[in-house]
């Protein structure tokens, strides 16, 4: 067969020139066209971002540049991909043999993926994985490669790099793993780095660190970066030029400033509208839905403009807990003696009023999810007092737990994992009603249909299985199930974190809408300050198992008092390319560990009153 066509041309500064790229999946007369006629140019040292929602063809385009798309069952059906090699020759990537492609992969074009855990080999030491990549592509001895690996880990700012080389991937945190992935990608000094949603799975605070790292490294090495993301906020932080894709086609392209200042295409505008902007809610007290989201006919919107209902703080709170503490024993040694404990939640007080949204924010591992689970008694917790709906839940008689789990429902981060894959969504929605005897079998399905319609899905979805839905639809199903028992409170644990930004905005709008219509309270657990600003009435900031600041949302956001709150807010990407190089106090390093030896109890937090209902921990 043909090999990569070599032709020398004058250096025009263009590293990669994609022309009319078509990618299809499947065989037969009508294969599915994932990408149609994509044109893309990446200059030397340039950062180009491809933006679009899941299924827009952005990742597939990137995989075709690496010639990896064939492994997923795809095919480059047309178009050309011209790549300039280090020695100046131009090659046609689409015509390379598998052997020639391997020489390019990892060597001249490198890639980092979304999920750093699954892209590292779990049974190999970190150091060995980097050394292997170097030895494969460069004429280096194992010892020389080890030295380069060490330097690379230093470059990506991994503390104590020598020790880290002798660790396994599971011993590192998500942010650390992504740094290792970047070191792995850069160890052969590639000309082009493809970053496929590299920060989507990370905390906002870690995301800010990684984005800054990629930018610094690019300045240092002069490589080009192709950045793939669904988040316009991230784009504003890194890109020089932006390509917007929608359903396999490029709908808009331009310099990043132009795209943000004057987006031409309606889809780009909708994408920009969906980005939660910190400060967008300044001057308001109640949550407000996003505007003008609808683009295309993908999801039917539930918009009947229900007026917001004010929260009456004069009434007693719906849920009130004092001194909530959850600790997990860490058994050690042969006999499982407990020498230390994870202090996941440490002596916190919570009040949630009817019809209000209380947001809990903080980084991974700060105990916010455990707080939600403790309230439903999914984990063992202690407290001084616990009242729900004027009933004392401290004693927890047999019937109390059932009533609590009927009136408080839970929505999980990963909607796919939270739905039993072997049950139809209709049955999953019916199950809580049947468990609590709210409906008979005959009527339950009617109500499931009605609930699906309330969340913007249709009646014929009841008999389908979870795998037949998109991520956003699955979260709608999970919300429908949570609504099935007429709950007074819904605990939403990172309920929108795993969703595309545009879908995330739709789900937030749905939650706000449902609250206005049915007067439900939410405990909204999230790490994303910008999302929290949108949806909440009140905010509690959590750090290492304790609340460090709480108060009405507008007070906390407009006048953050605690230094941790300020740093959390500064980590949120700002969808404005002009503010990219702002000086901001980033949270550096790792999230501290909440593991403490037995008997080592952290001192209770002392609060100072900042304003009426706004309290911050004394520092």
């Amino acid at each position, binding site marked *: 067969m043909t090999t990569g066509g070599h032709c020398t041309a004058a250096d025009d500064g263009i590293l990669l020139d994609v022309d009319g790229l078509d990618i299809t999946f499947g065989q037969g007369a009508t294969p599915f066209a994932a990408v149609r006629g994509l044109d893309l140019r990446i200059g030397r040292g340039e950062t180009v971002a491809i933006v679009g929602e899941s299924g827009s063809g952005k990742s597939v385009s990137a995989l075709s540049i690496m010639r990896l798309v064939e492994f997923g069952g795809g095919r480059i059906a047309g178009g050309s991909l011209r790549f300039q090699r280090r020695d100046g020759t131009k090659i046609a990537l689409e015509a390379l043999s598998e052997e020639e492609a391997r020489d390019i992969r990892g060597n001249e074009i490198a890639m980092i993926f979304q999920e750093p855990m699954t892209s590292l080999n779990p049974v190999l030491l970190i150091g060995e994985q980097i050394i292997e990549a170097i030895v494969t592509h460069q004429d280096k001895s194992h010892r020389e490669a080890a030295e380069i690996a060490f330097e690379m880990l230093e470059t990506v700012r991994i503390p104590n790099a020598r020790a880290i080389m002798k660790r396994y991937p599971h011993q590192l945190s998500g942010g650390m793993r992504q740094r290792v992935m970047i070191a792995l990608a850069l160890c052969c000094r590639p000309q082009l780095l493809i970053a496929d949603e590299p920060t989507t799975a990370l905390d906002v605070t870690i995301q800010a660190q990684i984005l800054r790292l990629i930018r610094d490294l690019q300045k240092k090495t002069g490589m080009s970066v192709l950045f793939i993301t669904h988040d316009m906020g991230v784009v504003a932080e890194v890109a020089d030029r932006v390509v917007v894709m929608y359903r396999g086609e490029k709908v808009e392209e331009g310099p990043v400033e132009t795209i943000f200042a004057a987006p031409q295409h309606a889809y780009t505008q909708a994408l920009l509208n969906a980005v939660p902007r910190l400060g967008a809610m300044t001057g308001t007290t109640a949550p407000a839905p996003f505007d003008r989201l609808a683009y295309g006919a993908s999801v039917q919107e539930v918009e009947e403009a229900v007026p917001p209902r004010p929260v009456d703080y004069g009434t007693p709170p719906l849920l009130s807990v004092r001194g909530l503490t959850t600790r997990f024993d860490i058994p050690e040694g042969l006999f499982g003696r407990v020498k230390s404990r994870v202090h996941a939640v440490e002596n916190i007080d919570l009040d949630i009023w009817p019809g209000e949204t209380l947001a809990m924010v903080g980084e991974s591992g700060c105990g916010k999810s455990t707080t939600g689970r403790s309230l439903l008694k999914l984990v063992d917790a202690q407290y001084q007092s616990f009242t729900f709906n004027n009933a004392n839940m401290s004693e927890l008689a047999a019937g109390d737990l059932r009533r609590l789990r009927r009136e408080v429902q839970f929505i999980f981060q990963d909607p796919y994992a939270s739905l039993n894959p072997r049950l139809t969504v209709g049955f999953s929605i019916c199950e809580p009603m049947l468990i609590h005897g709210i409906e008979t079998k005959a009527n339950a399905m009617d109500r499931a249909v009605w609930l699906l319609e309330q969340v913007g899905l249709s009646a014929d979805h009841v008999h389908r299985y979870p795998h037949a839905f998109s991520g956003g639809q699955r979260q709608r199903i999970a919300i429908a199930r949570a609504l099935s*028992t007429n709950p007074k409170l819904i605990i939403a644990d990172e309920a929108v974190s795993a969703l595309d930004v545009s879908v995330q905005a739709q789900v937030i709008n749905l939650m706000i809408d449902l609250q206005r219509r049915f007067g439900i309270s939410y405990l909204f657990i999230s790490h994303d300050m910008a999302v929290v600003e949108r949806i909440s009435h009140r905010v509690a900031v959590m750090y290492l198992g304790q609340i460090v600041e709480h108060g009405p949302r507008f007070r906390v956001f407009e006048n953050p008092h605690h230094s941790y709150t300020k740093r959390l807010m500064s980590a949120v990407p700002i969808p404005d390319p002009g503010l990219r190089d702002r000086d901001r106090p980033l949270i550096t390093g790792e999230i501290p560990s909440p593991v403490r030896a037995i008997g080592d109890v952290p001192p209770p937090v002392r609060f100072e009153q900042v304003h009426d209902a706004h309290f911050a921990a004394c520092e």
Partner: protein
Amino acid sequence: MTQSIETAAAVADKPKFKTPLGEFWRRMSREKLALVAAAIPALMLLAAFAAPLYLPFGPDTYDYENTLMGSSLLHWAGTDEFGRDILARLLFGAKLSLYIGFVSVSAGAIIGVVLGLFAGYYGGWVDAVIMRISDVLFAFPGILLAIGIIAILGPGLENVIIAVATFSVPAFARIVRGGTLSLKQSTYVEAARAAGASDRIIMFRHILPGTMGSVIVYFTMRIGSSILTAASLSFMGLGVDPSTAEWGAMLSAGREYLLAGAWHLTFFPGLAIFLTVLCFNILGDGLRDALDPKLNDT
């Protein structure tokens, strides 16, 4: 106060309430090959029960004039060293072998699955007791354990079944316990608990079906090996009477004539065992696919 969610709007097209079991049958009906595989042992049994109507020989009709005959129009599968018709013996043996294989493995599977489910779900001392006992059972080679049980209970068909069932229990318990341990951690189980589901609902509706895939595959493989184990016991005089028309016993007995050129004595019982095991394997594959909506639903 608030507009209640209970005011369900009238739905024009009333959807039927579909139970998970009904959905399973609907999907199973699409697994054509598996249905064929299920039909073959069933047909064997039918042919066996109807044999007196069309076969001129019983399994124990001796004919010393025609011993060790090859296939002929009269004896389709030939005759054995006593001149007994092998086809008749095979058909009679189908009843016996399938009965032993199916009943013993089913008994072992039911007990093992329930024990494994409890051990995995409750953990702690329940787990420790159940799994230590099954470790002890595991420590014996299967056939040795069976011999030991026969030694206590005495030979005979029922005792063979008990013996084979007993050494199937720990394997099933292990498989289900492993699946339960991982599914117990899954988010949808936590979601069910958060919705107020009882332990019973969580165990039998949310966890058990998830472990059934590997159980069913193992079940089908186990039927084949159980038929062989039962045959080995029979051969050693610990199971059914050696002269009984049972596939494994026929195979063992025919071994002696293999070098004498009478290959059909072992070939046909072997073929019967092979076919039966293959059918159960294909059936197992089909059942597994039907249990997993992702593989089966379009």
